[in-house]
């Protein structure tokens, strides 16, 4: 049985900031939702179901906040689902929302993902000490830094590649009105001069902590007919593996490689470097760009850094990556994955504004979470999928 065709016809996001002190959690979500509905030319009355995603509840100190938010999100009297798959959650949530349409259950689904990190402190929430354990854990940066070191060793990458990626994404963010970080002066040199936080990761190579939300309207084929520029969903995939396992490849996890292989197959893509026109890849620490380029098959093993170093991932490069500025420029954790999925949709819809890449026919949205063990990805296209 084939999936029912589904398309994104509305994308909305907040102005991401370190602290959005002007809004409540509901207000934050509504800012994204109202933009998505307007983009889709719809109202709440048109929506059949709502899917909410966010990362750990400890971040905002509310258990299952979708329950108290239900009315404000227009979900009261409708089906409401809440997804949580760690950092990949924004992507997973979009996929669950798609499946409501692809299953033929609903025709118009609203999905929203958010994080209001300023309500607490992510480093605290992620590093609550466990009894009996050694308290060396130091947030996400502390977790990922050793694996970045492993990548550098394994690929023999020159150490400035991370800075190239960071400078590129920060420059791209200047073209995105919603991005959190706007530092026009960021250069490779300034990144290299920034403080070493979790050696080998420097301050300017890390993502910010943001308040923000992203919302999408995903609809069935007949509803999409009314949209001037639907982004058709050509493939979706989720894969999970363990956080820690004997001899687990933590630089290039099997779940990532398997997910990419399944995704390209679904989307009928045999050479992603040639066939994908823009990619929004979850890069919370700059080195993850070359790491994921290899894992996703845009580059051969050990060749990811060469692609990043060559400028191929810049907006005018062969495979523009994170034209929006990416996670390195805005990181409302729970929403970050959906922002990648939404930005990919904007690219194929020709609606990305100043950070639009010319002539994008197919784009990748990518998210990962946990200790690089949860993966969610999709391919969207300007044309209706033939399969």
């Amino acid at each position, binding site marked *: 049985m084939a999936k029912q065709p589904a398309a994104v016809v509305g994308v909305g996001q907040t102005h991401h900031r370190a*602290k959005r*002190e*002007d*809004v*409540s959690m*509901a*207000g934050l979500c*509504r800012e994204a939702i109202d933009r998505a509905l307007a983009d889709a030319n719809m109202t*709440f009355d048109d929506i059949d179901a709502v899917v909410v995603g966010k990362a750990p509840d*400890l971040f*905002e*100190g509310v258990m299952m906040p979708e329950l108290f938010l239900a*009315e*404000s999100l227009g979900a*009261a009297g409708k089906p409401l689902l809440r997804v949580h798959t760690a950092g990949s959650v924004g992507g997973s949530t979009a996929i669950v929302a798609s499946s409501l349409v692809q299953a033929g259950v609903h025709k118009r689904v609203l999905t929203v993902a958010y994080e*209001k990190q*300023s*309500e*607490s*402190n992510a*480093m*605290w929430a992620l*590093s*609550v*000490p*466990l*009894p*009996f*354990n*050694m*308290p*060396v*854990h*130091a*947030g996400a*940066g*502390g977790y990922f830094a*050793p*694996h970045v*070191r*492993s990548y550098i*060793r*394994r690929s023999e990458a020159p150490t400035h590649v991370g800075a190239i990626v960071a400078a590129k994404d920060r420059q791209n963010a200047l073209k995105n009105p919603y991005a959190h970080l706007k530092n026009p002066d960021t250069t490779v040199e300034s990144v290299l001069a920034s*403080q*070493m*936080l*979790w*050696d080998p*990761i420097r301050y300017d190579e890390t993502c910010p902590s943001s308040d923000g939300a992203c919302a999408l309207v995903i609809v069935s084929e007949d509803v999409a007919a009314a949209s001037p520029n639907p982004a058709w969903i050509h493939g979706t995939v989720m894969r999970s*593996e*363990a*956080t*820690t*396992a*004997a*001899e*687990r*490849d*933590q*630089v290039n996890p099997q779940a990532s490689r398997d997910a990419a292989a399944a995704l390209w197959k679904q989307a009928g893509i045999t050479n992603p470097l040639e066939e994908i026109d823009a990619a929004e890849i979850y890069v919370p620490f700059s080195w993850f760009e070359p790491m994921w380029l290899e894992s996703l098959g845009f580059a051969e093993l050990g060749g990811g850094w060469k692609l990043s170093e060559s400028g191929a991932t810049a907006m005018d490069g062969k495979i523009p990556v994170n034209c929006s500025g990416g996670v390195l420029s805005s990181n409302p954790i729970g929403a970050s994955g959906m922002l990648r999925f939404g930005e990919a949709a904007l690219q194929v819809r020709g609606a990305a504004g100043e950070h639009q890449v010319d002539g994008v026919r197919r784009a990748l949205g990518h998210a990962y979470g946990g200790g690089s063990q949860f993966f969610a990805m999709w391919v969207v296209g300007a044309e209706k999928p033939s399969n």
Partner: protein
Amino acid sequence: MTRTLSAPVTVAFDYTRSTGPVIGRFLTGLRDGQVVGGRTSEGAVVVPPPEFDPVTHEPITDFVEVAPVGTVTSWTWVPEPVKGQPFDRPFAFVLVRLDGADAPLLHALDVSSPDEVSTGMRVQVRWREERVGSITDIECFEVATESGPTGVEAIGDNPVTGVIVPVSLDYLYAASPEESAFYRGLNEGRILGQRCPTCEKVYVPPRSACPTDGTPTSEEVEVSQTGTITTFCIVNVPFLGQKITPPYVSAYVLLDGADIAVLHLILGVPAAEVRMGMRVEAVWKPREEWTYSLENIDHFEPTGEPDADYDTYKHHL
């Protein structure tokens, strides 16, 4: 001996909530000694005001002051209050429809026995003296008096835009039986792993399920106290709740005889000289300080042996 080791954990944070305009208006009112409701598109006055209209979904903008006196529409008795509730002695939770409002508000009622509360009874707000813009600015409700609630004066003229909500939860954290065996071994100065009967990998600590095949690890294997640093990071960041003062090196140490690395602290060598492949050994705290914890090992430090060849540990990265 119980099957598992357990220890208390408190998860506590003072959340800094931004309220947005609607809840902010309500909390501003409380600070200033007023109860403010919101009028919905259908004309109902709701306290606290909903942020968005239930029908039109537009933000609520029509605010109405209601009386600090009202009628109990439902109540219950709280015989065993939990931490954080308005009283630490038995009290009533009530739904109170304030005069001028169409929907009731949830709060506490100060009475000394369930016999003193009933549906339909008249109650009034008891204001807290130090009001900050919080639902707890209403200390509680009390039985209505003829003179009505003691009036209070407005405290400030800046609107309330944020509220601090302390959340503190106490848990009893238990280690799994397999982890408990590991921590008990540490209490004897030994590092105990277990072998997975399916894939035969040695896990340190042992696991309730081998993540590769889902089989619990079983056969006990004592591993060496010497191992190889596979990879590491130098933590230079201070953060809330941190227990070790930065900078420090946190490293994955693959102990000889184990198939998975443990994360630990490296000392006895300048951070800049720590290398992948460096051979290190466990340095234990004095025996009298041992508990059931990985912290019994104070840190790892270099053995002085030549570095391990990359090929011997590259599949552990």
